[in-house]
């Protein structure tokens, strides 16, 4: 079979198929080009943006999830990622302060510079913790003057981040606003179900459950409704026995997570934020760990585990290394799985400690 092209020559089937393929690829690339190009600083932001943006976003993260986001190097390859971005999303609160302005300026992309329409600080709607109240200088270590930036580790804040990102996506692509809103509802619901379990979410409005959980009278609320918390009731049930627990963390990365689940970090491995543990401080931590019968020293994989292991050997505390970003640990490929991993590992080590006692 052959067709006549506009010059009158014959075109073979093979040529025709190739031409069709080229046209299809061109359309495909045009469709891809229609997607909003989004670059995020962390994989957590990427996961939430993908959850909300679906097929209308193409999201790239600067961090792979394994790095310490405070100390990412402003590599030229990151500048290239930003060059054609329509939207840049950062965690903010000075988490990325050492490198973001370098790659933003380097990109020469006026759409995503700080303050531009394509720039989003995901901390906008977050209730910030640990904002310094007194004078701050560097003798206090790496203090974040705008508050602790590790807010994504509270699942309630995951909902707020989804809301903030949805608003921005809808602002940039208003015709897909309803689509983004619908996907946000699905994402928020997945957090709610993971937090309280499907039964409670079916019986009560999620906002009500979050309200009572935040106020600290969640169990009382359930009791008043003649419901007992059971093991199927999500992270709330898994972390029930952790309430009132005292632990040690390496860095103040877990403040939001611990507050959500009623856990207290009585000390950090770092004597001051960003300062590695000194021998004197390690001795103090051993004392603290013994005094409070600390079960867990919670740390991120990128810190040295020498000092935590030393404290662990002299006390009952177990060192728990946990990635705190999506893809930081195996099986944490989205936001809910990240929180699942954290909750599962903490509750498992608590169950182990309880049975040992």
């Amino acid at each position, binding site marked *: 079979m052959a067709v006549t092209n506009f010059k009158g020559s014959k075109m073979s089937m093979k040529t025709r198929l190739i031409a069709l393929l080229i046209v299809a690829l061109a359309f495909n690339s045009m469709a891809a080009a229609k997607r909003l190009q989004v670059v995020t600083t962390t994989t957590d932001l990427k996961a939430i943006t993908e959850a909300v943006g679906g097929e209308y976003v193409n999201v790239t993260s600067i961090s792979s999830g394994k*790095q*310490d986001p405070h*100390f990412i190097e402003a590599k030229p390859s990151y500048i290239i990622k930003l060059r054609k971005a329509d939207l840049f999303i950062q965690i903010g609160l000075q988490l990325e302060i050492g*490198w973001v302005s370098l790659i933003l300026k380097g990109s*020469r992309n006026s759409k995503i510079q700080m303050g531009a329409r394509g720039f989003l600080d995901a901390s906008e709607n977050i209730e910030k913790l640990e904002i310094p109240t007194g004078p701050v200088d560097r003798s206090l270590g790496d203090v974040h003057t705008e508050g602790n930036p590790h807010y994504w580790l509270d699942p309630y804040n995951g909902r707020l981040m989804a809301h903030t990102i949805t608003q921005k996506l809808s602002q940039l692509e208003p015709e897909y606003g309803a689509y983004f809103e619908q996907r946000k509802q699905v994402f928020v619901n997945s957090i709610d179900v993971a937090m309280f379990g499907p039964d409670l979410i079916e019986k009560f409005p999620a906002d009500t459950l979050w309200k009572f959980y935040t106020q600290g009278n969640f169990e009382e609320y359930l009791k008043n409704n003649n419901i007992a918390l059971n093991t199927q009731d999500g992270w709330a049930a898994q972390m029930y026995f952790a309430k009132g627990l005292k632990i040690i963390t390496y860095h103040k990365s877990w403040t939001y997570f611990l507050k959500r689940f009623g856990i207290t970090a009585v000390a950090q491995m770092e004597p001051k934020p*960003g300062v590695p543990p000194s021998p004197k401080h390690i001795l103090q931590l051993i004392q603290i760990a013994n005094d409070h019968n600390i079960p867990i020293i919670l740390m991120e994989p990128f810190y040295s585990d020498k000092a935590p292991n030393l404290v662990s050997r002299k006390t009952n505390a177990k060192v728990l290394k946990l990635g705190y970003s999506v893809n930081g640990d195996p099986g944490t490929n989205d936001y809910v799985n990240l929180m699942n991993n954290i909750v599962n590992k903490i509750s498992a080590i608590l169950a182990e400690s309880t049975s040992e006692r």
Partner: protein
Amino acid sequence: MGKAFAILLTLHFTVYGQTAAYLNLSFGGLFVAGISTLDEPNLDIIQGGAHDPKKRGFTVQNLELSMTGAVDPWFYAETHLIFQIDPEGESILEVEEAFMVTNSMPFGLQVKAGTFFTEFGRLNPQHPHVWSFVDQPIINNRLFGGDGLRGPGVRLSWLTPLTWYSELITGIQNANGETMVSFLASDEVKTLGEYSHIDRKVQSMRDVLWSSRWLNSFSPMETITANLGVSGLWGPNRAGQKTQTSILGMDIYAKWKPLTNNRGFPFVAFQTEVLSRFYEVIDSTAIKTKLETVKDQGYYGQVLWGFKLGWVLGLKVENVWGKVGQTDDPVRGDRTRWASNLTWYPSEFSKLRLNYNLEKWEDQGQLQTDHSLWIQFEFLIGQHGGHKF
């Protein structure tokens, strides 16, 4: 060290409950103390950089006041003022850089205007506190002078649309002054190879410095990044009314760092630059006056190993050589330097460095070997921006 530095404090002004950083201020002090088998006149020659250790005992290498900030929605500006105390104890103030940069030009273009370090190679545009050794390489001293190649001018940069980082830079700057030693220089700058200098005025575009650079960066995997650059300079010199200088260079910077690094450690970084200068002179000693080209070449290569949090071991080798001019020229003879150092960074804002230099140099045809041991210390206060990779 080449890593992005965290900025943890900014000069904040509270305006109606909002924070705004209109002017970011920082101040850095860089000092060195040590001993050397070189006596003091020779120490000044061998340590040719203006920020190098200059004498047995203490040297104030660099006191730098930096002011940076957004000018308006279209420009960003930086000013760096240098204070020094010279070996004789006299205080010096220099305007090292003061420039503005566009931030909203289309097509990946960017213009820088003001007075600034020429973007030639890797080390020349860097400020002394970024250097990984206590002194700047001999070849940089020899071709660009003690203060580095800098001057008033304008440069255009284009971030090309290629799939990897590929930046083309071209610029023009005044070719005169003590920071333009290979070009029109100044009356105070020593003549090259004892060839005569003339008083040369700017009469055409051939009488300014033209610079070009092509920088490419590759990240074959997330843990490895390599920058490859080639640079060129073309400008007038003072040997004659039409004599020109060309300088060509090639630089490589490659770094490995694992993903799960702790504040940037561990890492291994390799850096090298090779430079050649072609300086046209008029040889009036020949029977008939003729134009000839004096060549100077050299390289340095260094490896840094950040072996544990805050600790870096460094090793550097340097070699320079050149065709000596009409008379013996002690600043242009063959030289080799081996250097090693151990640096401790208590934080990103301070450092303590022990640096050993082995110098091999020629003095009136005799090969000399000398040793120097330096301790360098640094502080940074205020808002200090991150460094380019």
